[in-house]
């Protein structure tokens, strides 16, 4: 299998799907030159009719995606940084998430909204949010958050065949990371988690950008004799609770790691659901590792203080992993 970068994998998925399905169109700011790299080469290959470089007008972009999708196109709406989801949020929340429902199921809305989310690169509060929880709360929106290039390709292709609005949220600054990418028609069904590491002592669920530090934490914990079952949900809507609960059934302990702000985060939702459906399985309180309820600061010293890293994950696991399940 060839090693490729995350943005190349996404690019490959889009290119293949656009070849396969002539109804797919792309709209987005600077998609013709593609500073991120994921839409590179599309305009040359598919032409300026299907690939539209848009003005900086997120509110019309996000809404046009809905209108075009409702009337026969399959739309890729590239929103660049996740924080620009907010400038396009009205149509996402008021139209995309509920038009089909309000119309009693009369329309399908095959839209792939794309954005890069999260911090770690000193781009400050207006370019560093992780807003998947807000999208999760809308209902009517699916959300994929790949943590590896292979997953990015498989999930992007599946998302492009889905008949609903799907967000593909890529961890900002991780687009260059290499990984194995299967050739050709490779899809991963939405809603299927992957166990990245098998283990019996503690379950760690890590979302998107947090899979990488969680893997590092697994190694450090293994050195201390603690084996972790690391679950990457890959999509947070739909969420593979069966996989998470199956793991918790073995370990009896759960730590959830999320780069979103803690209040109402995906970590909170997972914790709540496991408590609701699997309380009898738990031997210790559930831990959440997330960003405290602050904006993401610019200075690297400050940013490091707020974004979860392997050390914080290790601490959270140790806190509930002591024998007898009594938190320290």
């Amino acid at each position, binding site marked *: 299998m060839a090693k490729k970068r995350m943005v190349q994998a996404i690019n490959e998925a889009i290119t293949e799907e656009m070849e396969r399905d002539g109804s797919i169109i792309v709209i987005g700011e*600077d998609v013709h*030159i593609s500073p991120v790299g994921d839409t*590179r080469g599309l305009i040359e290959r598919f032409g300026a009719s299907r690939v539209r470089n848009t*003005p*900086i*007008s997120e509110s019309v972009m996000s809404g046009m995606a809905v209108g075009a999708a409702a009337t026969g196109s399959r739309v890729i709406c590239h929103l660049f940084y996740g924080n620009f989801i907010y400038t396009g949020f009205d149509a996402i929340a008021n139209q995309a998430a509920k038009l089909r429902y309000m119309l009693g199921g009369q329309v399908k809305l095959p839209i792939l909204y794309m954005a890069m989310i999260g911090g770690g690169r000193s*781009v400050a509060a*207006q370019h560093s949010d992780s807003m998947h929880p807000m999208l999760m709360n809308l209902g009517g929106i699916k959300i994929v958050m790949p943590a590896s290039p292979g997953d990015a390709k498989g999930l992007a292709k599946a998302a492009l065949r889905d008949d609903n609005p799907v967000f593909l949220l890529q961890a900002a600054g991780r687009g260059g990371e290499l990984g194995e990418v299967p050739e050709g028609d490779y899809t991963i069904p939405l809603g299927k988690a992957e166990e990245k590491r098998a283990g019996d002592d503690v379950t760690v669920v890590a979302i998107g950008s947090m899979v990488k530090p969680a893997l590092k934490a697994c190694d450090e914990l293994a050195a201390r004799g603690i084996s972790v079952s690391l679950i990457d949900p890959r999509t947070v809507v739909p969420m593979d609770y069966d996989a998470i609960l199956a793991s918790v059934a073995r370990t009896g302990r759960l730590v959830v790691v999320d780069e979103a702000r803690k209040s109402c985060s995906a970590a909170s939702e997972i914790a709540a659901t496991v408590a609701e459906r699997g309380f009898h399985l738990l031997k210790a309180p559930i831990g959440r590792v997330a960003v405290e309820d602050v904006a993401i600061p*610019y200075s690297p010293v*400050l940013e490091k203080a707020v974004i979860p890293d392997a050390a914080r994950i290790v601490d959270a696991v140790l806190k509930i992993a002591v024998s007898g399940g009594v938190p320290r």
Partner: protein
Amino acid sequence: MSAQEISSERLLQMYGRMFRIRLVEERLAQVQAAGELPGPVHLYIGQEAIAVGVCAHLSDQDWICSTHRGHGHFLAKSDEFQRMVAEVYGRATGVCGGKGGSMHVADVSKGILGANGIVGGGIALAAGAALSAQTRGTRNVAVVFFGDGAANQGVLFEALNVAALWSLPLILVCENNGFSEFSPTATVTAGEIWNRATPFGVPGRSVDGNDVREVWAAAGAAIERARSGGGATLLEMRTYRLRGHVEAEKSFLSKSYRSDAEVEERREREPLRLAVAALHGAGVTADAIAKLEEKERVAVQAAFEYAAESPWPEPGAAFEHMFA
């Protein structure tokens, strides 16, 4: 107010500030390339006349809102800039304590509500500052600087409407520098930006944004009108971005969006060059200009030393300032 009325003292003063902006930005380009800055920077080189010509009419009680390309506006409005440089360095002494960085430099004590990472984000903020100035019965005004790219955000039209309805003391300064990130303006912007004010009954004007005298005159008239209750004005400043959208962009772009020849051609009418010619025309000696430039060099050098030697913030500071 016409460009001819400008005194040679005023012109020299404005040139000095433009020169300062140029020095700071060139130095930031250097230290960015050397890896000394934590984050990306969008430089104002080539657009200095706009910030300086506008801010020459403003006091600390007047407000400005700016953009991701905001160092120049800060430097034009405030004489104190060491802590702005320290902010871009992410240091504890930064004007926002290192929390904001390049895209959020602000000094509220100087009427600088800040640079902004959201394209078009300053437009509504400035409309609000204008509303507040009006309801509090002051003669103060709010100025928003925004790019040609931001002129395609719907909020511009909403702000024009409300500013017209309420005669807000708001000056909308669009810096048309030819590009919206990596897209030439004409490929993403229909019609004339100055003319977007017309349907709302707001005066719109197109101004040579590289000639500080023209900027000064046009801004002076608009600001005076706003102060005396006449309402908003939209000024489209024609200029050209001489550096990249963001520093080091060539390292990640796979193709170019403009030619080097085009940039060189546009450099001939760059604002500092035009200002020097105007100064000579007004009888200011080369000696007087050189003296002023030297003074600025010393001040800028001191600011960068201050920034580079400043301490990093304490990690715990990350959890302060969310609520009043």
